[in-house]
């Protein structure tokens, strides 16, 4: 008796599974986007009389999820605020969220889906350089519009992408100048994770140190992503005694790197260190006590004392909880929807080409990190700041540069 019931159950499960697979197949074929045309939309984007659809494409799962969550939250917050203030050209923004799953081909697939199937007017997303490289051909082919939030290596400029984070020279040169002047640094030790962003950054740093600052690079080391054994590195540092360590170590390696530095006695008092890869988000993982006294070079710190930032931090915490911290990239992600909204309204159209044109020289006087301007090379003019980390995971801003012009293809640094 029991056996028969079980068998029937098994058969039922199989039947329902078959039915399920079948439904998926049919559903997949039926899903198509509804087109809508009007004056503001001549290129068949997903714009109706009262709504406009945009995409958010970040890793919600996989190793990058922890880093990209902040960006998703910031983008959603910005879009919610825009909707509350009346939307874009009188239209409420609808969001389609897709998961890039920390996997570059998936990013490409989903980017294509957002542009071809969903006809999104703009996409906010991609985080790592690899994911941006994967989606770039898709955006160029389908003439989409991407707002990319992460500080990155430069050497790129696309009609279809706006880079709301800093490119390498903005972040690095001001930081090194400061280290040379304030810390009187002459000997630099360069350390990075082994991929395109640290490599390019260090290339620029080395040129600047040797040619402009007339200092020396005592060593340059790269470690695979996820590397956690920095013992031999620490011995080398102790041997070479650099004035400043210049670091671009990312992800999980960061935690091991700073903990081991600390354990080896290389604290901020003995060994100054300037990094371009640690934001408030990373500090959460590394622990403020391991970073105390070290410096980061960024355009944004949560502790910035600006009216635009106070408002932003308050609203971010109201929406996502009091414990949430805001790092540089999260703030960059917040800029995207706003810059898009203003460009659309300036252009009076959702058409990508018109929005791109209208974006040129767009200014935002009281953004969370202060004044910014969109350059015609699709990067932003902005200030660079040096923050010194405190035990509580927040930074004390010790230096602020002038507004720096973005220069993704720096002459003399390639």
């Amino acid at each position, binding site marked *: 008796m029991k056996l028969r019931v079980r068998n029937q159950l098994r058969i039922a499960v199989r039947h329902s599974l078959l039915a399920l697979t079948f439904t998926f197949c049919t559903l*997949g074929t039926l899903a198509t986007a509804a087109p809508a045309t009007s004056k503001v939309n001549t290129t068949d984007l997903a714009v109706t009389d009262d709504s406009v659809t945009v995409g958010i494409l970040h890793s919600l*799962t996989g190793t990058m999820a922890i880093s990209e969550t902040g960006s998703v939250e910031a983008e959603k917050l910005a879009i919610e605020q825009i909707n509350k203030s009346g939307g874009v050209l009188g239209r409420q923004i609808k969001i389609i969220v897709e998961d890039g799953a920390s996997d570059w081909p*998936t990013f490409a*697939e989903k980017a294509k889906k957002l542009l071809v199937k969903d006809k999104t007017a703009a996409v906010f997303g991609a985080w790592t350089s690899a994911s941006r490289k994967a989606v*770039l051909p898709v955006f160029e082919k389908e003439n989409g519009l991407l707002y990319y939030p992460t500080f990155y290596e430069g050497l790129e400029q696309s009609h279809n992408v706006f880079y709301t984070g800093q490119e390498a020279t903005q972040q690095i040169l001001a930081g090194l100048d400061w280290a040379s002047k304030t810390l009187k640094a002459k000997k630099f030790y360069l350390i990075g994770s082994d991929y395109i962003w640290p490599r390019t950054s260090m290339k620029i740093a080395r040129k600047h140190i040797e040619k402009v600052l007339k200092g020396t690079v005592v060593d340059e080391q790269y470690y695979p992503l996820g590397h956690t054994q920095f013992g031999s590195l620490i011995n080398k540092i102790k041997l070479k005694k650099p004035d400043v360590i210049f670091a671009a170590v990312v992800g999980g390696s960061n935690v091991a790197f700073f903990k081991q530095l600390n354990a080896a006695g290389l604290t901020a008092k003995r060994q100054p260190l300037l990094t371009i890869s640690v934001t408030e988000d990373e500090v959460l993982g590394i622990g403020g006590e391991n970073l105390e006294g070290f410096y980061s070079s960024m355009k944004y710190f949560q502790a910035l004392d600006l009216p635009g930032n106070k408002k932003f931090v308050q609203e971010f915490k109201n929406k996502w909880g009091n414990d949430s911290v805001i790092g540089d990239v999260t703030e960059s992600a917040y800029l995207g929807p706003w810059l898009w909204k203003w460009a659309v309204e300036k252009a009076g159209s959702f058409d990508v080409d018109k929005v791109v044109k209208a974006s040129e020289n767009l200014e935002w006087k009281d953004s969370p990190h202060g004044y910014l301007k969109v350059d015609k090379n699709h990067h932003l003019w902005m200030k660079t700041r040096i923050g010194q980390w405190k035990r509580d995971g927040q930074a004390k801003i010790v230096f602020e540069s002038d507004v720096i012009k973005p220069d993704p293809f720096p002459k003399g640094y390639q």
Partner: protein
Amino acid sequence: MEFVKERLLGGKEGARGILILAVLLLIVFPLFLDIFRLNLVGKYLTYAFVAVGLVLCWGYGGILSLGQGLFFGLGGYAMAMFLKLEASDPESTKIQSTPGIPDFMDWNQLTALPWFWEPFNNLFFTLIAIIVVPSIFAFIIGVAMFRRRVSGVYFAIITQAIALILTVLIVGQQGYTGGINGITDLRTLLGWDIRSDSAKYILYFVNVVLLLGVIMIGKFVITGKLGRLLLAMRDKEDRVRFSGYDVASFKVFIFVLAAAMSAIGGAMFTLQVGFMSPSFVGIVPSIEMVIFAAVGGRMSLIGAVYGALIVNFGKTYFSESAPVLWLLLMGALFITVVMAFPNGLAGLWDKYKDKLNRDSLKNGFRSLGKREKTFDIKWPKITLPKFRKKETEVKGVPSNIRGDHA
């Protein structure tokens, strides 16, 4: 004609299966799916090449390779190298410090094209390399492992390790390989824009025809004596060896064949998706590919295609409709499949068919589902009696071939 029917199509039942698949892929999908979805199906089908290879080498040969991504990647990278060189002509790369070399080399301070990239300027060489390079690689691994009689779990672990080594190598040598970004932004094949919709249609059909070809090669192998030997090897390797067959050579052959098939899939992947990255070479994608074969049924060449299609379709569908929960849904799908039908979809199909046969024609009906069983009956007929009378058997065997196992 008889050869085509019996060997390439695998008899009446096999021909029906291939026909249904061909109609589905060549007529139904192109008619009912728009180009975006069809391109996705094309991408899924490139994994089917690997799954078909796995049916041969794992299902029939009993060699579980957890490193098929290695060969998929080698094939894909070979194709990508050719396309990248074509995309990096001096005109479109004039912004670089060294125009005319791929962009990632320029970012990594390379000033000349590395020697091993040079031959990939030639399409003919590339097409050969797509098959030959992974085959040589598989041959070396195969000879090194099978001659030493490494098998089972140990072999699986070693293939995994090799896949990992290659990933680390690709990521580490980014000046030569594109690193973790992979080789991106591929545009044309001999001046033909592979990103256009018409190109996507053509590539899809080329892909399907190649896949059907690969399935027929698979059928040819398993319907012949080689297929029977493979099964025998899988079930009792020592007996086949003592019968005088060179077991290692057969294993090497089937492993190389599976590798070559995976490589074709990799090359087609690069063409249809437009880039190649180390995320297809490592352990995770390799295991995923084994899952495609397992879901489809590891004894069924055609089932493997359906397995690759359904798992990937589920992946796309779940991740589009539930971006936060989709990994859990995929996990649930795998667990259900393994619990509910351990022999995969093909096993389920065979069972239904058996039941149908039992109900309608009580006896005298020979079907594909039973072919394997007839096999089981044939084999013991020769060996089982001998096996039971072990002492007499040993006495009967001439001492020079008895060996120390007897």
